[in-house]
């Protein structure tokens, strides 16, 4: 298990390969990679803030929930903070499980957490200037799917 909030750019492929090598008893590894979108240059930079300690603790709570719900071999969560450009990786979630259904659902669940509840603040700078962003209604709806 690893949770990392880092201001250093990362190489998604390298982490996936290392994770896969460790999870030899897992048949499947689901992953989600979020990256800074470039759409007609409307987003040129993205800046993320975390609350060191608090942010990681929140993610750990979500990770423990995922382990209670699904049978998982391992979990890896890496989230960038700081300023990123279009195309830069923001977040990588990896879930390894014997059965792919568990891996998929846990990865999806963790992404929902990271997108809506995780302790991050997000600022976009583009053609329309700079603004702080709050979650889309859609993100909240996705997250509700997991409530019992």
């Amino acid at each position: 298990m690893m949770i990392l909030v880092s201001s250093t750019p990362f190489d998604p492929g390298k982490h996936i390969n290392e994770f896969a090598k460790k999870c030899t008893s897992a048949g499947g590894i689901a992953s989600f990679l979020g990256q800074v979108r470039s759409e007609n240059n409307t987003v040129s930079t993205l800046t993320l803030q975390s609350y060191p300690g608090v942010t990681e603790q929140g993610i750990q709570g979500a990770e423990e929930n995922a382990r209670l719900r699904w049978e998982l071999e391992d979990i890896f969560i890496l989230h960038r903070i700081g300023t990123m450009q279009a195309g830069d990786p923001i977040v990588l979630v990896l879930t390894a499980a014997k059965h792919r259904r568990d891996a998929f659902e846990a990865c999806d669940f963790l992404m929902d957490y990271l997108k809506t509840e995780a302790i991050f603040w997000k600022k976009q700078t583009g053609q329309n200037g700079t603004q702080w962003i709050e979650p889309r209604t859609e993100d909240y709806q996705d997250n509700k799917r997991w409530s019992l």
Partner: protein
Amino acid sequence: MLKILYFGRLSDLAGRQEEYLDLPKDINTISVLKPYLSTLHDLGDALDDPSIKTMINQSLVFGDASIIDAREIGFLPPVGGG
């Protein structure tokens, strides 16, 4: 020395993400700390917005609270996700 953290739009308003302050003795609760900081950094009523959450020593507090044992206070606008 008390560590104060400002996040999201508050960090832009305050011109900083964190600072260390020696507070006057009478600044001993959240409800008096907020106007003190608002004046210090010209924050207007940003800290009074009901969407701003307060953490003392990395734990959420609701309503007013003593800051006598506080080492760290954070002011958190709604989180935006990653």
